[in-house]
């Protein structure tokens, strides 16, 4: 049965678009090559952390949007407008609370707050899983950073030293990894799964208890449970009688995986929206500026998917939505939509990796109108029944701006809510 809306991409934008569509009464379907960048990120909702070229973090992301648009006039925040961005964020916060994975902001709900990165650098973010919030760098409590001997994806002494360099009181301790698991070769995901067992969480809490000094807040790598995260975190706070916060780790990101799983479960179980992975679009057919179908490569045979509308949420270069070749050509991979990227590798990069202005190639992308439809250089809509969401837009570099999740939520919201069916 053809769906109303075929969503291509299962990152934050694609999954949220599926939820919005189902809530609107549509019959959406999600296909994707694999999961999106959520499996790699800190699991927070970053809205706008830095303006291009400015090393100072953005305090008030909504108030900073006009400044952003002065430099990046076609930025998706300009297309959707601040009110839609705020609505999308509010919806996300309500949804995740319903799903049992609540997100919250800093002490002022209208501004960014700073959470320590695993290196101890201040990450400007807008919403975070509640288990990360006690890391807030505007709070005064001294930090106790807890690492595990033999865990290769988290280094507590380095984090504590950088916090100290910035004027915070911070110290680091190590616990043995076999408190959590006898297995030696672990990713953060393995450890989170092990901590889903109450006995293991209790053992960790008991071992940690004697190390905590009064008044300290305790930072642990983000491994406090996968499916039972809220309970594990609650149990730790209760036993330790101290604020406990999670620190994101190198990928795979447990907070990001928790979010993906919660959203996918909601889609598939509550909303009956199919999410099919392992499907990469090979080609498509369009007629009279409307896409009729896309065809995917799958293990058995190519499949044709028809829909009234298509939502592209394939995620730029990182997600595989764009690719490029040796000759400096760059293209959008599903519908071959025109990109604003200079077709000349000589103009793609700056000499410094960490250049505050970012690299020109990564702020190129697709042009869109206010309904998130792709448009060409003259402003003409390319396909009337295609919508864009996520990290695809020109004039934006979500990794440099720290706006990846904000762009995903706002554009998914607007793209779906603007859909009209006959």
């Amino acid at each position: 049965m053809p769906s109303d809306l075929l969503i291509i991409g299962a990152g934050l934008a694609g999954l949220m678009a599926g939820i919005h569509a189902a809530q609107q009464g549509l019959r959406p379907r999600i296909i994707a090559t694999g999961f999106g960048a959520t499996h790699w990120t800190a699991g927070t909702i970053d809205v706008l952390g830095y303006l291009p070229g400015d090393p100072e973090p953005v305090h008030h992301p909504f108030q900073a949007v006009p400044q952003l648009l002065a430099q990046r006039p076609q930025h998706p925040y300009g297309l959707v407008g601040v009110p839609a961005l705020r609505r999308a964020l509010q919806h996300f916060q309500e949804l995740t609370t319903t799903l049992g994975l609540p997100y919250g902001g800093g002490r002022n709900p209208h501004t960014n707050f700073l959470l320590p990165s695993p290196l101890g650098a201040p990450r400007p973010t807008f919403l975070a899983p509640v288990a990360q919030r006690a890391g807030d760098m505007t709070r005064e409590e001294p930090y106790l950073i807890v690492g595990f001997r033999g865990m290769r994806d988290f280094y507590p002494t380095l984090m504590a030293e950088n916090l100290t360099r910035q004027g915070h009181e911070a110290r680091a301790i190590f616990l043995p990894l076999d408190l959590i698991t006898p297995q030696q070769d672990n990713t953060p995901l393995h450890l989170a799964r092990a901590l889903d067992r109450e006995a293991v969480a209790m053992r960790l809490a008991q071992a940690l208890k004697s190390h905590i000094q009064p008044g300290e807040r305790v930072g642990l790598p983000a491994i406090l449970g996968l499916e039972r995260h809220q309970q594990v975190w609650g149990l730790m706070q209760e036993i330790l009688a101290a604020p406990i916060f999670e620190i994101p780790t190198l990928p795979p990101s447990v907070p990001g995986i928790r979010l993906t799983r919660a959203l996918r479960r909601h889609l598939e179980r509550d909303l009956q929206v199919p999410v099919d992975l392992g499907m990469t679009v090979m080609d498509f057919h369009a007629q009279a500026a409307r896409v009729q179908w896309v065809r995917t490569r799958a293990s058995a045979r190519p499949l044709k998917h028809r829909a009234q509308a298509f939502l592209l949420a394939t995620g730029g270069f990182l997600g595989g939505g764009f690719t490029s070749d040796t000759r400096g050509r760059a293209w959008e991979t599903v519908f071959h939509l025109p990109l604003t990227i200079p077709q000349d590798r000589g103009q793609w990069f700056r000499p410094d990796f960490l250049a505050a202005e970012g690299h020109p190639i990564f702020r190129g992308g697709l042009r869109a109108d206010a309904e998130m439809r792709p448009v060409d250089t003259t402003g003409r809509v390319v396909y009337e029944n295609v919508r864009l969401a996520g990290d695809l837009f020109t004039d934006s570099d979500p990794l440099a701006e720290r706006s990846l999740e904000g762009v995903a939520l706002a554009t998914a919201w607007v793209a779906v809510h603007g859909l009209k069916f006959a």
Partner: protein
Amino acid sequence: MPMRNLHTEILVIGGGVTGVGVAWDAALRGFDVILVERRDLAHGTSGRFHGLLHSGGRYVVKDPVSARECIHENRILRHTHAPCIEDTGGFFVVTPEDAQSDYPDRFVQACAQTGVPCEEIPPAQALREEPRLNPAISRVFRVPDASIDGFQLVHLTAQAAREAGARIFTYHSVQDLVLTQDGGGPRVVAARVHDTVGDETLLIHADLIINAAGAWSGRIAGMAGCQVEIVPGKGIMMATAHRLVNTVINRCKWPSDGDILVPAHTVSIIGTTDTPVADPEDLRIEAWEVAKMMEEGEKLIPGFRHARILRAWAGVRPLYKAKEAASDRDISRQFALLNHRTRDGVAGLITITGGKLTTFRLMAEKTVDLAAQELGPRRACATASTPVAPSQKDLYWLGHRLREVEDHHLQHELICECELVTRGMLEQAVRNNPTVTLDDLRRDVRLGMGPCQGGFCTYRAVGVIHELQTGEGLVPDTENAPWQVDRLTSPGQTPSSPTSFPRQAHTTSPLYNPNLLLRDFLQERWKGVIPILWGQQLKQEQLDRLIYLTLLNADHLPDPHLKSPLTDFYHATASLATPSSDPD
């Protein structure tokens, strides 16, 4: 502060393969030796080549003297430097483009004349051994080429030199040479050397100074008023994401750009170009050079133009232009040994330059023979029969690291999954080697050289170093480090006890700031990927950006403006490719 004075018989300038070879040879003969290198060992040309241990095949027609030297040294090094060498063998293949040339016949004849073993094999057999080879090749010749690890070669030779009594100072740069007038004329008697790490100046007095500064040797000779014209010849190389071949593949034609593919560890390296540059530090890579490699690679391996490229780099050959050479093209790949006493009337200085990595031992032998004439005879040269790592007799084998990781169950110890670098190896390198930057660790253990180009391991390695520094008060000690480099490449080695290591208290030096180490290494990796970022590797780079920007916020760490004397190098040579124009 009074200047520190050191005294030695021989001062060697340059920590590339030539310099460490000279130090090793001279120390074995009983000379008192100091070697100074302004950066890390193998930081220059010895660490920036394609990894070919020549059979001599590439020179048989063009330069038979070099060919003879190569095959002679090839045989010796397989014995003396076994753990650096993988016995890949080599093919010279005749592609359709070269089928009409008389070069293959001349090649066969010249191999016979120079003593380079060469066996013609049926193309079908070559294709069975190397199925990716162009099936249209018409003739194939097998020669004893091999793959050699330049970093390990230099480090093991340096370790052997130290064990024979030589002192080796890295991050010590020569500022000028001190001359006196004795009865007969000017004589070089000392070098003023700046210690970059300790930030002090040393005066090293030597009976004889040996200038082995490679592409920089003209500058060193100039400090004594001697003119040595070096034409730095830049060559670029690119590494593919996997080994496309297990045999060295050469085009059987007059040597030219992009005609060789060398299997090296887990990658294959295509090379190279030869462009004269004014400055040996001008290592920028142009888009046409990258395009040329992709195009030429396609002739050897169909589909090469779609291969994932991990990185591009350039090295400079120290081409010595003899006074009589008419043009740059007449410059030989043979080495030049210059006694400035007889050549320029300046005593106390010898320059050894030109030559090739494969013949470094021979160059060192001839150089120290000359030194012995100047300083008085010692023991005979012993390098041809002295293995540098007596405990490691076997040639390198690609599966070595994986086998050790699996045998010892070290999967959980892997800091760099791409190159199978364990925490133990890193700790061993930091404890036992004069490590100042993460880039030094890269040369020691191949940190960050795989597909993610430091994406995961940069953060982990900085974390490990920081734990060593804070837990053990351990900072790199270039002078007193024990230097057990032969154990660095082995994931199964247990780290030696920290108590055995001399501790130093330089922790206040900005060089050891973890944030600076991290930023510098990210930048070092970046400069080598800019020229080749497209397709999959561009996607990989976005993941690295996600990790270092959004997750770690590494661009907003404390001390953002902190720099070290070692930082600039990584920024100065970062370059942008210019428009590419290859027709598809």
